[in-house]
């Protein structure tokens, strides 16, 4: 576990510490979490508690796997936006994956996600991690189009 600045998690997610003190511990979030449909056995509430206590669990499996589906938020009595808290945590603990990095780099260069650039940047990951076998099904997704460069202000 790496010590990280919980203040930043609050700042990034737009929450205050008091907002988490209302959590009832009902674990409805865990009962509806998408990842538990496939037996990952995760409890999103643990993340809130750990931030509330100032001990951040940035190794929690949800940091990597939360799909931002908002099922937890939708069922939570306080509508806490757990995926946004997790995204803040992920950013602060620098757990960005190569996919996210390629996206950001594209936004930096073009102002948009320009897919041909992203694919080029990820080509070694796509090769190594066995995505090539999907290419025949992906033909309709590939299109040659020129990038647009968004004006800087």
């Amino acid at each position, binding site marked *: 576990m790496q010590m990280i600045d919980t203040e930043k998690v609050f700042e990034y997610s737009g929450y205050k510490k008091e907002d988490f003190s209302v959590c009832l511990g009902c674990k409805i979030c865990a009962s509806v979490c998408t990842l538990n449909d496939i037996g990952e056995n995760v409890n999103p509430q643990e993340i809130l508690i750990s931030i509330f206590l100032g001990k951040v669990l940035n190794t929690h499996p949800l940091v990597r796997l939360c799909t931002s589906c908002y099922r937890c938020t*939708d069922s939570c009595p306080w509508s806490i936006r757990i995926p946004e808290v997790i995204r803040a945590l992920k950013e602060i603990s620098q757990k960005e994956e190569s996919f996210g990095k390629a*996206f*950001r780099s594209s936004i930096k260069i073009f102002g948009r996600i320009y897919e041909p650039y992203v694919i080029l940047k990820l080509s070694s990951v796509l090769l190594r991690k066995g995505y090539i076998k999907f290419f025949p099904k992906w033909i309709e997704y590939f299109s040659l189009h020129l990038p647009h460069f968004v004006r800087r202000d």
Partner: protein
Amino acid sequence: MVYAYYPGCSLKGSAKKLDVGIRKVFGVLGMHLEEIPDWNCCGAVEYGDASEIRSMSRKNLFKALKVSTRIIAPCPLCSKNLKESDGSGEFSILHPLDVLSLDFLMSIPAKKDLKGYVITPYYGCLLLRPKETAIKDKEIMEKVILSFGGQVAGEEIKDKCCGGNKFFVDKEIVYKLSKIVLKKSSPFIVVFCPLCHMVLKTFSEGQKVLYFTDLILYILGEKKEL
């Protein structure tokens, strides 16, 4: 009626079909879409700082002012981000399903019906959640399918998550999640999101994955088969 159109990054590439479909449907129905000049990425889910995403989306709202304050954004994630960036409610940010209401769709010049088709409308996550940015009528597609003589199946998975945004992080997890959806779906699955389309198509064995625009174009007689 002129709308400012925000296609978003995917619709310029992998989801070109959705872009073409939206333009065509709106065109046939006599509504004019004008693309927002020099729009930028909405921020997707790529930044941990929520205010950074809001400010990226906010820029697009200002760029839209040259066209209209009524903005159409077909990608569920873009429409969520744009809706959330409009703090004071001066804009009207709409997913196409907010515009193409049931009454309206029932009055379109239909050339074909859906008799004999069993269809699963798969909304996924962001059209239905969080509630602040969700579409107004959460059963609109079921109603459209039934109204045009089709049958609806697989409603229990309509709001499940396909795992799409983790596809390039952990494909095994996404495989398992999409199988839950595919197992309960009929041979025709109607989707709204570019990532849902890609994931379900990748793991489908023979089931057909369609955009909702394909369905409307079929009814309008603009598309030969489903």
